């Protein structure tokens, strides 16, 4: 049975409620450190038209069940902390409004392809390690700080920036890896997030680490295992297109791009 929010229950009817609407939220609960049990807990929470899934979860935590495990921080789709499966599709809880889900019941589950820490919080070590593996920084011998001439700039034309700028919007939320069917099958696949970041730095004309990065991704569980399902690009909340980045990277490895 669903736990009803106090603002919606009869005994507290004196509470001022501006909303006449409510939503039932089903939260997948589990704690692998204690046991293997998995269940859904239902809660009914009042909503406004601007209420996000994260607002509902925080309302549940504040008024109905403090023990719900959820990771969040910025609440404005910048930090990438609150990734989860919302009505079966990976999304950011803070960036998904209840009103746009067009459903009286919202089901939230932890992201697929990550081990669960507790309830909706997952362990993102695999993604972070793969991200580090592709060396996500500009590699070059010289520096912008020069002992003789002081500080100088590595200038870049707007056309060159255009080649990679969308990929630099990645907030490492991990939704792309969660949506990727190859990630589900191949536990050692490098993943769309890391591959998109490899492209971001290879396409940057200030960077000189192209060969190093291509060597990292050109292995049996690297770039070639992508089936171009495109689900990574579909779920990205920042409009990054990792599937396209992967195809562009393949161009470098096949010798059809410089």
């Amino acid at each position, binding site marked *: 049975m669903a736990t009803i929010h106090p603002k919606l229950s009869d005994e507290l009817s004196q509470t001022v409620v501006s909303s006449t609407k409510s939503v039932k939220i089903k939260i997948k609960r589990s704690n692998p450190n204690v046991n293997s049990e998995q269940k859904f807990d239902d809660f009914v929470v009042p909503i406004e038209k601007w209420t996000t899934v994260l607002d509902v979860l925080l309302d549940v935590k504040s008024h109905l069940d403090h023990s719900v495990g959820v990771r969040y921080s910025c609440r404005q789709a910048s930090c990438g902390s609150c990734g989860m499966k919302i009505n079966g599709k990976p999304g950011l809880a803070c960036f998904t409004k209840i009103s746009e889900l067009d459903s009286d019941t919202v089901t939230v589950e932890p992201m697929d392809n990550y081990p669960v820490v507790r309830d909706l919080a997952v362990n993102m070590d695999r993604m972070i390690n793969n991200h580090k593996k592709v060396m996500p920084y500009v590699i070059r011998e010289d520096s912008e700080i020069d002992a003789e001439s002081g500080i100088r700039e590595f200038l870049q034309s707007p056309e060159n920036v255009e080649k990679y700028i969308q990929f630099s919007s990645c907030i490492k939320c991990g939704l792309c890896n969660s949506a990727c069917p190859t990630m589900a*099958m191949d536990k*050692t696949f490098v993943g769309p997030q890391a591959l998109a970041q490899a492209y971001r730095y290879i396409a940057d004309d200030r960077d000189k680490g192209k060969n190093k990065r291509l060597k990292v991704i050109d292995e049996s569980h690297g770039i070639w*295992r992508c089936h171009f399902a495109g689900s990574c690009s579909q779920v990205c909340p920042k409009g990054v297109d990792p599937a396209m980045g992967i195809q562009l990277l393949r161009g470098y490895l096949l010798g059809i791009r410089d």
Partner: protein
Amino acid sequence: MMVLRESIIMKIHYGTALGALFLTVIHIMMRLTQDFHESLEYENVIANYESVGYAILLELLLILISVHGFNGLRVILLEMNQGPTYEKLVTIGCLAGMAALIAYGSRTIIMTNMGML
């Protein structure tokens, strides 16, 4: 054991697919030189094998399809499971399967071409 980089293997994979497609088109177009059912009659099939040019085409087709197919199988098996021993076994198994299929197919083509079958 010499290990090829995955990009080289995939270039071979794509190349063999294109090559096999091209040769298959020629192979199918050769059926159009006579009625289709006639082209599949025993004597005509044997006549194809006995022509040196056609035997070379069949041999090339056999090699291209074997290389492409067994590499495809290797990729599928690598996705199903991971681990150094498993991956080594899959690679060796697929190479052995490919070599065995090419050897058996070549034997058939050569023996038929020489009139031994």
